[in-house]
């Protein structure tokens, strides 16, 4: 009897803790940052619209047509995207820059020029990375556009 009793005790000891105790827990958040939609004001001021197509930004300026800017890269450090405008779109963007800066930049598309302002309550900043202009005003432009 002593032997049987001893084995019973050992068997119970060998089973160890219940499996339910061998567990761990952690939690992750579900996050999103929402920005206000950029859209036309009732006063038909300069319009800035987001395209449904990822990586493409559509800018419409009443009286100056519109242009689509295609993302060409992103700066992970600053979180900004780089867009490229076609030659014919450069003049339109130049007009936008003049609108934003109220003449502060003089409309010059030289590298490093930074302008910022508000379009329909949406903060916008443009930084010219590179530009070339012909005598007739046409040319090409690379710029970063940041919304806040």
């Amino acid at each position, binding site marked *: 009897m002593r032997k049987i009793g001893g084995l019973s005790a050992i068997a119970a000891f060998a089973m160890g803790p219940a499996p339910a105790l061998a567990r761990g827990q952690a*939690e*992750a958040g*579900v996050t*999103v*940052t929402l920005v206000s*939609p950029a859209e036309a004001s009732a006063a038909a001021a300069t319009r800035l619209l987001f395209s449904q197509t*990822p990586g493409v930004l559509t800018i419409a300026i009443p009286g100056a047509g519109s242009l689509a800017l295609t993302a060409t890269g992103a700066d992970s450090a600053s979180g900004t995207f780089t867009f490229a405008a076609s030659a014919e779109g450069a003049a339109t963007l130049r007009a936008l820059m003049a609108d934003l800066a109220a003449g502060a930049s003089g409309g010059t598309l030289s590298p490093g020029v930074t302008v910022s302002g508000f379009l329909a309550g949406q903060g916008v900043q443009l930084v010219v990375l590179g530009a070339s202009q012909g005598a007739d005003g046409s040319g090409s432009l690379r710029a970063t556009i940041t*919304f806040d």
Partner: protein
Amino acid sequence: MKIYTKLTAIAAASTLAMVSQTAWAADHDSANATVTLVTPIQVSKTTDLAFGQVAIPSVGATATTIIIGTSGAQTGTADKVDTQTATAAAFAITGQDTFAYTPSITVSDLGVTGLSLSSFKGQCSGGSDQSLTIGGSTGLAGCALASGSDTLTVGGTLTIADTATSGAKTPGTIAVSVAYN
């Protein structure tokens, strides 16, 4: 006669002693106390489920969606401003090599105005997407600790109504507990 009686008594005593000795020897034995120890299972968050930076629909416009797959791929109808910050939720699980385990995932919708969660999915390394219950706990099947570790990823859909307000939001949480099978 006296002598015979005395010898008989001695013989009886001797026999009794032998019986007693035999019984005492049979009462000794031994058994080992054994236990098998395994590495404790642990889980830690690697990344949150981040839907990125998106635009709120214009007033009166149809609600839009952002979908983050368990692979981290981002799709949907919402206007995305910065795709760099979109990631699936990821959890690192460590424990005993080759052991199977079950992660229980609880997705909670915190009821942020204009935002709602749906169609959440979870996946263990090398597995396939398994649907998760919003507001309840779901156990994933087929998870194992190859080489003592595994990665669990979670993705889902965020619907954005025009009643949402701008700013950084936390519309939900994902709680994971793990246990050996």
